[in-house]
């Protein structure tokens, strides 16, 4: 039992047995402990009764409890990372799930490499999040954000940011590797009344990119997920 304490527990929820089986096999091979559920009800029971470190959740579940319901319910008592599995082209659904507190999404059909990469990134971030209060500087590539001194540097040179640009960067770096919807970012930086002012966000993110990206036209740090939101990468691949 001592060993199982070290192993991360992942709950996989999908109504398609062959997908469950494939995902389970790969995650176990990667050294995780895997729980599975095929309905929303089962998923909620499973998540509340045992310690889970991450949930992979299909959004289209049969029965009364949808994936969105599971997401909403779990968020009331836990901040366990949630990865949504969603069909192609359902951007609104993804945004809804992310707004409800999901951390990331993967579009079906997906490759196992993609899934395991997302799982690793979110679990890593889960570790970091516990140390948030320490205000450890955020580093990615040649970019560094020093939260204590409120200074942003690129390759050691200070970058002058407006207060809003700085707030955007801080919020994204506190949530590095997560997809942040426009609504979340607008609410966090400008306040809830501005949550629909996408125009505002586009302009400020554009300006921020010109200051911190090597090539603002093809950004590497702050990436755009069309129809969904933004993501700040914690490491450049």
């Amino acid at each position: 039992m001592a060993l199982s304490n070290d192993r991360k527990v992942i709950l996989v929820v999908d109504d398609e047995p062959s997908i469950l089986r494939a995902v389970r096999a790969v995650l176990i091979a990667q050294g995780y402990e895997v729980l599975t559920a095929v309905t929303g009800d089962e998923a909620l029971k499973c998540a509340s009764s045992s310690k889970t470190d991450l949930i992979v959740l299909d959004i289209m579940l049969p029965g009364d409890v949808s994936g969105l319901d599971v997401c909403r319910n779990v968020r009331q008592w836990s901040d366990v990372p949630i990865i949504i599995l969603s069909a192609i082209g359902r951007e609104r659904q993804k945004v809804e799930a992310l707004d409800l507190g999901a951390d990331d999404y993967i579009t079906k059909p997906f490759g196992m490499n993609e899934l395991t990469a997302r799982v690793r990134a979110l679990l890593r971030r889960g570790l970091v999040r516990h140390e948030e209060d320490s205000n450890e500087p955020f580093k990615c590539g040649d970019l560094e954000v020093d939260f204590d001194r409120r200074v942003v540097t690129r390759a050691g040179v200070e970058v002058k940011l407006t207060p809003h640009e700085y707030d955007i960067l801080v919020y994204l770096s506190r949530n590095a590797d997560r997809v942040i919807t426009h609504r979340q970012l607008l609410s966090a930086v400008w306040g809830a009344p501005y949550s629909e002012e996408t125009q505002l966000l586009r302009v400020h993110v554009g300006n921020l990119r010109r200051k911190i990206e090597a090539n603002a036209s093809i950004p590497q740090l702050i990436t755009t997920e069309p129809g969904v939101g933004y993501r700040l990468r914690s490491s450049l691949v």
Partner: protein
Amino acid sequence: MDALSRAFRRDFRPAVADHIVALVAVGFATGLILVGRSVFDKGQVSLLYLPVVMFCGIRLGFGSAITAAVASFFCWDFFFLPPYYTLVVENPKDWLSLAVFLLAAIITARLASQIRIEAQIARDRERETRLLYEASEQLAQEVNATRLLPVLIEQVRSICNSDTSLVLPVVLPTKDELGQPIGQSVYSEDMLAAIRSVAKVALERNQLIGFGDSQRLWQKAVGQDEDGDSAGSQLGVFVPLIAHEDRLGVLYVGRRDDGLPFTRLQEQFILTAANHAAIVIARQELVGQAAEARVLREADAMKDTLLSLVSHELRTPLAAIKANASGLIGEHSYLSTAEKIEAIEAIDREVDRLALFVGNMLDLSRIEGGMWRPVRDWTDVDELVGAVVGQLPGAAAGRIAVHIDKEMPLIQIDDAQMAIVIRNLLDNALKYSAPDTQIDVSLGVLQDEDVGRCVLISVRDKGPTFSEAEAEHLFERFYRGARNPDGIPGTGLGLALCRAIVEAHGGTVGAVNVGSPEPDGVSFNIMLPFLDD
């Protein structure tokens, strides 16, 4: 002979002038005969009066002929029966002559005016026939009801001496309501509304309103009856247009400008015109139905083609997957490790191909079915292109150069949908051009004649050009052009999807050969209009 007797009645009271002409004619004849009184026998004189009566009957009608007959009677007695210049008759036999003369004169008057009336009817008939012929000639030449009906209506209006004539067609497909009236009208909106409501009654009851007896009735009791019939009669004549028991509309003819009822001939003409109008409208409908049927047939044929193409696109990767997967299991385990890996990679590749095809197919049908309308939000096209390029593998992204108009304004589009468009255009350019050539993406703002102020996104590659004939088909689904000589894999749906998305945004997408002096590549151009313009 109903028309004849009615015409008699109408003829019976000619204008005063006609009587005066009759009297003058008799007087003139009397004067002439007086000159030769010595030559003529008194009996012959009576015969000389009959042509005068006949003349009056033929030229002026029964009434003036009778006047002429009576006047001749007295003139003969006064001037030619002894004793002269009195109405007294000397010889009792002359009384008999006088009586016979009066009878003869009256019969002459009657026969002559009958000839006149028959001639008049014949002339009217001829005129009616001519007008009908003209109308039917136009009918035969003109297939289009929207052009023919106004002509027909104008004919009715002028023949019936009416100030307005209209056709109120039913509105398809329910045929419960009457649509906008066809024809020139001098009436106010209130009047038109009244006409419309009476017309609706006429159509619902399938009943002529304002015709024949009811037309005369209203003249007697104008405005005293609130019943639809008489109210309608005051407005004019309403004829329901019926063909094959199908209600098509109502022909309305306003009252005669002299306030008199329509003549029999006018009524007949109105009925004939109504029949023509019904035929014209029915034919128009049939032409429309034929066109619709043709479109449906073509759609059916297209669906068949589509189905065979779709099943081919689905079956090919499925067969490959099945072949490879079944090779990996069971007794085929004699495959070497390298071969197994190869098979697995093939499966992975074919699944990607299948997923792309199904995804494109679903997106396309969702957009074309109106189930995936663009959700517009402010978007930075520059940022969007960057995001799409960023998702490409490094080698591919390295070939793409983005050129931006310094001041790119934000535009309201569905960025998720537009990302699909840009992704497809970039994939196309990457596939069809040589691996060492550059792909230029240009963003700008321009004023287009058709689209208005818009954002232009163009993707230019150095791949093979296309012919003019191909240009029309490039954006059709499953069209794989001559640009594809080497069997470059693709779903044949990418460009169709692009076009569907761009058009859902009110924009246009097109392709042109570019390069000078000789075209050395293709540029795909998207124009997206600004909503506020």
